């Protein structure tokens, strides 16, 4: 079943037109990865799907429902969870308060115990203020926080940016485990090596449009093309 479907999506920041007709779909339980250079509109795509960027046209359907008219504070209730690139950890809240903040929207989320098991750093620092965590710890917290809510589909924006290799590995394991549990994930990545381990399917984004789309098996065949576009 197609869980998320986007057709002809355009979006603007003020006057500047960023997305020029994005098309993509995600099957239930699938992990897709959007690749692309800096500034091509990956983050914008996620923000527009989430409804944070509201100057948009086109169609977004999630679990069969038209999302274009849904107000921002209702999107999460439909089952979409968003982890922003800048992480968005709250300074005035303790780590634990940060973790507990997003309302649970559906059953099936992880318990706090499971989360602490996954990210022991967080357990250790749970009563310190959120932004006193290091960059990597903050990234873990941002992910952990959404895992609790029972969202059906996660939108992850560069979860490995600025992280130590060992943590990246950990996050990769988490993503694989999530996939095994049936979670649907839309991943935005620049770290190609990482993405190739966790994703089922790839989209390549360039100047506000999806220019290519292929499953992980076809990766080797697409390498030359990726090389030329991404410069990996």
């Amino acid at each position, binding site marked *: 079943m197609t869980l998320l479907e986007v057709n002809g999506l355009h979006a603007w920041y003020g006057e500047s037109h960023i997305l020029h007709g994005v098309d993509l779909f995600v099957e239930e339980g699938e992990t897709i990865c959007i690749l692309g250079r*800096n500034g091509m509109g990956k983050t914008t795509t996620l923000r527009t799907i989430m409804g944070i960027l509201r100057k948009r046209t086109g169609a977004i359907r999630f679990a069969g429902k038209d999302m274009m008219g849904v107000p921002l504070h209702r999107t999460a209730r439909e089952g979409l969870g968003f982890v922003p690139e800048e992480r968005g950890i709250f300074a005035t809240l303790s780590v634990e308060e940060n973790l507990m903040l997003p309302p649970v929207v559906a059953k099936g989320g992880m318990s706090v115990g499971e989360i602490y098991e996954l990210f022991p*750093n967080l357990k250790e620092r749970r009563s310190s203020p959120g932004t*006193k965590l290091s*960059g990597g*710890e903050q990234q873990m917290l941002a992910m952990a926080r959404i895992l609790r809510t029972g969202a059906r589909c996660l939108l992850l924006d560069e979860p490995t*940016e*600025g992280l130590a*290799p*060992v943590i990246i590995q950990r996050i990769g394991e988490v993503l694989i485990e999530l996939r095994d549990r049936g979670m649907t994930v839309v991943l935005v990545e620049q770290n190609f090596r990482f993405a190739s381990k966790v994703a089922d399917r790839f989209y390549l984004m360039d100047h506000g449009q999806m220019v290519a789309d292929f499953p992980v098996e076809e990766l080797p065949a697409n390498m030359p093309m990726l090389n030329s576009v991404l*410069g990996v």
Partner: protein
Amino acid sequence: MAPVTDHEPRVVLSARGLGKDFGGFTAVNNVDLDVHHARIHALIGPNGAGKTTVFNLLTKFLQPTRGKITLLGTDITRTRPDKVARMGMVRSFQISAVFPHLTVLENVRVALQRPAELAVQFWQPLSALDRLNGRAEVLIEELGLTPYLNTRAADLSYGRKRVLEIATTLALDPEVLLLDEPMAGMGQEDVQMVAGIIREVARHRAVLMVEHNLNVVADICHQVTVLQRGEILAHGDYATVSTDPRVRTAYMGTEDA
């Protein structure tokens, strides 16, 4: 500490027993560090190990709880951050730090103004600054920003902002350069270019940098210090450090970088 080469260049920046507590939490503890002239020194470690904090301590943006810092033979443990900068140690920031509404040229000139003693002249016209243009333009050229000379920094892409920040830092011609994740968020070709630049400037300067991109570290750094939980875990050249099993478990993971 084992010498890395036979004839060790002089130490320009050193810390002894450096420590910082935040409330009850010890972010940095007992760190000894020597940064050498004409050397690139990498500071790596897991997230939250205290790398940025060490930077903040060295540049005096944070006051150390313990320890002593010496810059070019002077004790700077109690010196204000702007003074430290004037003594010849300049840093960049983990989150890019430019003056967004100034043009690229103006950004670089702001850095040049102070050494040129053109900073407090409230009675002179702006055109007095034109004599700094030559030097600024050379720097901008070197870093490939010439097409953007009159672009406002805010309008640059993320990667270019980082490049601009490095240009501004270099403009001060510092003795010691502290770079906090200079390559973060840069595209591959920019990484190569910036790595090249850093290598170039380090010919006659000391560089201390935090970097997660281990390819770069392996490529250009002479010395590597690994930090974990605020303490030094290992120290040496990249080959030594990267084979250290403790470093592999704590930081690099099992696979190759």
